[in-house]
């Protein structure tokens, strides 16, 4: 204890701070950083989960960049991102903007929007999967058939399948984004709006000049958060295409699903780890880029 007594107050504060930080630091070290480092190591090795790991250098990466399926999957992942993020951002803002002004049954409406976010993605994906079936079992196609309109193959099509899977994923995330947007809207001081009303400016000007600029931190958060979500999309795709994961013809397969299949159905852990490292780098780059573009200068 002598050592402790000899410390200055500042040093004591630091010692205590680290003592309290020890648990999260250890937790992060063991649960996050150690496996991450291990995954990077495995990406340079060949391992089938059962035998020894053997060093293969850059083989896994070479194979990855020469694999046409990887590039297809890479493209799909960005289609999910570039379609999903703006669409969900616009819809959730429009809903939040109008919901914010509605007093009638406000709490109930908000709950309705938030419910899908609380529903298990697996259950939701299966229900939508059945909605999309052809006649006689699919809801949408039965409806079309009863109107005398031709069938649409939602999931069994290389062009329609990806948007069809994206739709419920966007819908599921909407509730959360609406709540965040509403919190952001409430945080804007009323005095700005009052001043604008006294000056007699139009609603559009209020929206463009006051609401949106002041919502910037909220928008940054939602864009980063939902981008990461769409880059990691898995459960909706996997559950809506279980028999033919990511199909037809890999047209809906995102990177995470490819990683999962490589690791746990082909048991090629090294190759899967290489894909994981690429995904990690993509997520890192996208997040840094967005923070830089959208942050206040």
């Amino acid at each position, binding site marked *: 204890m002598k050592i402790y007594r000899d410390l200055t107050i500042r040093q004591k504060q630091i010692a205590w701070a680290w003592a309290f930080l020890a648990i999260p630091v250890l937790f992060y070290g063991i649960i996050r950083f150690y496996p991450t480092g291990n995954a990077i190591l495995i990406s340079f090795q*060949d391992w*089938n*989960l*059962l*035998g*020894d790991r053997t060093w293969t250098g850059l083989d896994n990466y070479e194979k990855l960049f020469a694999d046409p399926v990887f590039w297809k999957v890479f493209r799909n992942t960005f289609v999910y991102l570039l379609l999903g993020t703006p669409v969900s951002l616009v819809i959730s803002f429009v809903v939040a903007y109008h919901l914010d002004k509605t007093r009638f049954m406000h709490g109930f409406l908000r709950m309705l929007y938030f419910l899908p976010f609380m529903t298990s993605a697996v259950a939701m994906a299966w229900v939508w*999967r*059945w909605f999309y*079936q*052809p*006649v*006689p*079992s699919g809801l949408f196609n039965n409806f079309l*058939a009863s109107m*005398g309109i*031709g*069938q649409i193959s939602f*999931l*069994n*099509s*290389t062009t329609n399948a990806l948007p069809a899977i994206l739709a419920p994923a966007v819908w599921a995330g909407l509730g959360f984004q609406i709540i965040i947007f509403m919190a952001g809207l409430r945080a804007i001081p009323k005095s700005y709006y009052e001043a604008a009303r006294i000056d007699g400016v139009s609603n559009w000007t209020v929206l463009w000049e006051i609401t949106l600029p002041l919502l910037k931190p909220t928008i940054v958060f939602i864009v980063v958060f939902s981008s990461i979500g769409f880059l990691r999309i898995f459960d909706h795709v996997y559950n809506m295409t279980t*028999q*033919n994961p990511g*199909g*037809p*013809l890999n047209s809906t397969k995102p990177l995470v699903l490819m990683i999962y*299949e490589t690791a*746990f*159905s*082909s*048991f090629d852990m090294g190759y899967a780890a290489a894909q994981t490292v690429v995904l990690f780098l993509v997520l890192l780059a996208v997040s840094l880029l967005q923070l830089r573009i959208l942050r206040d200068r």
Partner: protein
Amino acid sequence: MNVKRLKAFALASATSIAALAGGAANAVEIEYWQYFFDARVTAMEQLIENFQDANPDITVKMTHFPYADYRTKVAAAIPAGEGPDVVQLFYGWLNDYVEAELIQPLPADVFPASKIDAEFFPMVQAMKDGDQYWALPTAVRSLALFYNERLMDEAGVTPPTTLDELMAAAKAMTKRDGAGNITQVGMTAGMTAQDHHWWREGLVRQMGGEPYLDDYKTVNYNTEAGLKALEFYTGMFMGDEPVTAIGFMDEPQAAFKAGRAGMHIDGSFRIGALADIRGLKWGVTELPATNDGTRSNYSSYWVNAITTKAEGEKYDAAVKFMDYVTSDEAMQIWLDVVGELPAKPSVGMTEKNANDPVFGPFIRGLEYAHTTKFADESAQRQQMVEMVERMQLQGMSAADSLAAAAEAEQKILDEYHSK
């Protein structure tokens, strides 16, 4: 230093406790692992009980896991000296287990290869290496044609015995709505289900081909026979008058269960699931032959093996246990409880079993069944799925799509076998 001491202490206390326990019961305990499937667990419990009655000095402890975790757990446990003495694994995984030194060959004195060759159905020989067997199944599975009796009566057709009759019966049972959309299929289709096995080991061979060469290391279906098989298969849903649709009611077996499909090819493991469906009257017949009577079938199985962890008296006990679970008695229990077929003709081809209206067609199918030696079953199945999708969704010709599938599958095989 400290860790070492702690380990030594732990080991000492563990052995003394084990010695105490062992002294009291004077028994050797072995562990058996399998993945969780209700009927299999029940059947194994019965087998263990019978085995322990016959061998009071041995106790068998069964552990089971969800299928998804199974491989990982086995791989982690055995090298650590934990886990099973006898383990169940899918036949397709055998190579991986042998190479990782997780299992040891069965002793030749109790399981002589010549005796097993003579007594078991021939496809079991995939487990043989030289004159030793690595593993043996209790039960095997094969394919057969399920049919909906009510729909057959309604359409006035009988269960088909040839491929031509199959198409005719399917045509008679297909129904469409006013817009021409199929609302009831004559026959289910989908490479994602069991059809990829039917196509590989059934249709290709029936058309005179041989799907693989060199012990399943070389793809050989990009031939005249392969093309005929593919054209027959896709003709069911891409012809002028389709009798089925891919993805009809989501999954083939769902359509059959719902009574919206006249016929459906599936494995013997489906029997249990269909038996409980109320209002569904179904029958089973052998896979249809070609006009000249050629038949072929696919068979797969789960095997039991002794792990490298079993040594000394545990090894002896494990050998005895293996001997029992591959006995005639065990096979009959497995058939009665799980509905999987006996691995020996002496049990399977008894008067009662071979003429059973439900099990019979599957058991008769075993006689002409082949077992594909997969390098990566789901990746290889994916090639069959995509072969059909390229034709249906991208309009590729059958010949081109077949060639592309053969090339892609060969790549998977080469990569696996070069390791």
